[in-house]
């Protein structure tokens, strides 16, 4: 403990009106329940998406329908993007807090850089979805697919492709912004003792 009069005088104000331990305990119990429900929701979401993917792939295999074949392909492409968000969330939860602040910041920066590199996958996903939409259009135009199915699938897939493309642009900016702030905070820690 620092035997310093200045700090002793500040300590009176610092320690004033401590919050109740019972309130903290109740708040934590509520927060933990919410965290568990949130994790369960993420898991359920992943299971539903995977089940849908397997179902469409099975239908495509059993039915020999070209549109369903393309649907299966589109699903297979879209699933990694959806799972990417879930994996990113899990990775964030695994940050090791029991280390120095500088170590934690550098670890966080590495992860953000990894996420930036993973955005290439989202770009490929958008491109493949757009190509799938075009393929459906071509099949409908050459009478290999029903126009009503194409009417439904083309806007759905091209819309999804556009949304994924816009999302990865937004995400890339967000991650670049985070790297800039991380670098500023890392510099704050590195320069403090100079």
């Amino acid at each position: 403990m620092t035997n310093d009069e200045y700090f002793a005088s500040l300590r009176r104000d610092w320690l004033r009106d401590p919050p109740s331990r019972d309130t903290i305990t109740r708040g934590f119990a509520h927060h933990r329940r919410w965290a568990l429900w949130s994790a369960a929701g993420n898991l359920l979401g992943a299971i539903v998406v995977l089940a849908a993917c397997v179902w469409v792939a099975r239908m495509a295999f059993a039915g020999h329908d070209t549109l369903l074949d393309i649907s299966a392909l589109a699903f297979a492409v879209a699933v990694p993007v959806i799972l990417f968000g879930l994996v990113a969330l899990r990775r964030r939860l695994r940050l090791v807090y029991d280390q120095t602040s500088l170590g934690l910041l550098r670890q966080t920066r590495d992860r953000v850089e990894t996420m930036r590199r993973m955005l290439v996958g989202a770009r490929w996903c958008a491109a493949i979805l757009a190509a799938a939409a075009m393929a459906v259009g071509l099949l409908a135009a050459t009478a290999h697919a029903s126009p009503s199915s194409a009417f439904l699938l083309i806007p759905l897939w091209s819309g999804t492709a556009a949304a994924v493309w816009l999302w990865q642009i937004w995400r890339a900016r967000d991650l670049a912004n985070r790297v800039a702030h991380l670098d500023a905070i890392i510099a704050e820690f590195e320069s403090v003792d100079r």
Partner: protein
Amino acid sequence: MHTLETIIRTYGPALARVASSYEVDRALREDLLQEMLLAIHRALPTLRDDASLAPFVFRIAHNRGVTHVLRERAARRNAVQIEPSDSPETPEESRIEADRTQRLHAAIRRLPLPYRQVITLVLEELSHQEIGETLGLSVSNVGVRVSRAKGQLKELLRDE
């Protein structure tokens, strides 16, 4: 073996004060406190040395605070605004004390993060040895940092 309940009993109010050094908004501050406790709870199985409980708890709390600041800065939130008095109808004397407490918290939030960390740990009555263990610094380095942080804090409190 330490449980989270004993940690809340021993360090709960201190962790709430540490959270207040990172966040001015009451609701976000409460969320941050819960996130700190959750991070401590998750890291508890890795704690081996019973003697180093305080550095362990404060290290995780401060690191969670740093990642909170990172997120808030990225979201362009202003984390240094001075919060208005909680209860304007309190008697004059306690209102003055509350104002002083708020000024201190606001000034600490304006310190660079490394200084903020040492100041809160000094105010929580940790020894230089424990502060060094918490932040991964040598005792002499802690002394230098405390002295510089104190100088900046004095200036900030004088300016307000």
